[in-house]
């Protein structure tokens, strides 16, 4: 053990429930805090610094929450599937916990994506909803998230529940390319890709900085939320163990 690479040793330590509890308790507030500050700066820029769009007016400012939420909805699902795959293959309990902690956060971001898209769609498209490929596939993603959450809570044994829900998460990954390319594969009311990580975006550069802040902020916030939710699940699974009683008695 003493010859082990420090990074690998740290991963082994993190798998210990008491160690993970201390780690999550320490770092979750930082994720929330720094994420909130970065997002606050992004929202300030989105609402007060960038000029109104010449066609959409101020309604385009909704994209500064719609786009980061949409990216998060896909990223969190991919991460949930990755954790689930690791948990299913190597039976690592912490990965089960992390995978299941992803689900409510991803569902919330998906719901925000749909709600803000709908709010933007009413003045721009003249309708709250359309059975458009992008909108419909995003709605299916929300149902998949709800399916994972429901399955995890429908089975009493936590480990069996996580394996079943993790399998659904893995199957659901098929939806991610469908959502991503839905605006390319089908005639869609939803606009095509305007923002590219690699290559030039078709959005004016003066409008980009708040979006970048929001994209970074949502990821930091997610890290905080993931740790906090995983900590709660870890404590529930470890209920009755001495370390939980000692820690609770210490006035945490």
């Amino acid at each position, binding site marked *: 053990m003493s010859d082990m690479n420090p990074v690998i040793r740290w991963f082994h330590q993190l798998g210990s429930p008491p160690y993970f509890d201390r780690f999550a308790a320490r770092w979750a507030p930082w994720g929330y805090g720094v994420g909130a500050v970065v997002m606050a700066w992004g929202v300030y820029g989105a609402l007060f610094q960038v000029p109104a769009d010449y066609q959409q007016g101020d*309604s385009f400012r*909704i994209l500064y929450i719609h786009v980061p939420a949409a990216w998060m909805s896909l990223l969190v699902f991919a991460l949930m599937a990755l954790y689930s795959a690791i948990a299913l293959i190597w039976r690592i309990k912490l990965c089960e916990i992390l995978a299941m902690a992803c689900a409510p956060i991803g569902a*919330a971001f998906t719901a925000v994506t749909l709600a803000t898209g709908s709010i933007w769609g009413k003045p721009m498209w003249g309708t709250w909803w359309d059975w458009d490929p992008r909108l419909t596939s995003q709605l299916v993603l929300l149902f998949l998230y709800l399916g994972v959450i429901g399955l995890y809570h429908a089975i009493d044994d936590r480990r069996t529940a996580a394996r079943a829900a993790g399998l659904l998460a893995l199957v659901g990954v098929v939806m991610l390319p469908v959502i991503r390319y839905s605006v390319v594969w089908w005639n869609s009311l939803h606009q095509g890709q305007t923002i590219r990580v690699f290559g030039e975006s078709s959005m004016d550069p003066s409008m980009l900085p708040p979006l970048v802040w929001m994209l970074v902020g949502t990821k930091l916030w997610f890290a905080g939320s993931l740790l906090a939710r995983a900590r*709660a699940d870890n404590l529930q699974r470890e*209920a009755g163990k001495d370390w939980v009683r000692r820690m*609770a008695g210490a006035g945490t």
Partner: protein
Amino acid sequence: MSYREYVIAAYAVFAVMLAWDYLAPRFAIARQLRAARRLAARRAARPDTPDRSTELGR
């Protein structure tokens, strides 16, 4: 600002989601710690040396 109501509604939805995402795990952790303290109190209230012979003698 044009479309002010729509912009406010969208940002309000986002703020509500963030508030929920912050509070829900905090409440869940507090619930687990409360349950752990209750369990510790119950165990502390038990007599230190239970009469095992009586239990086994039934």
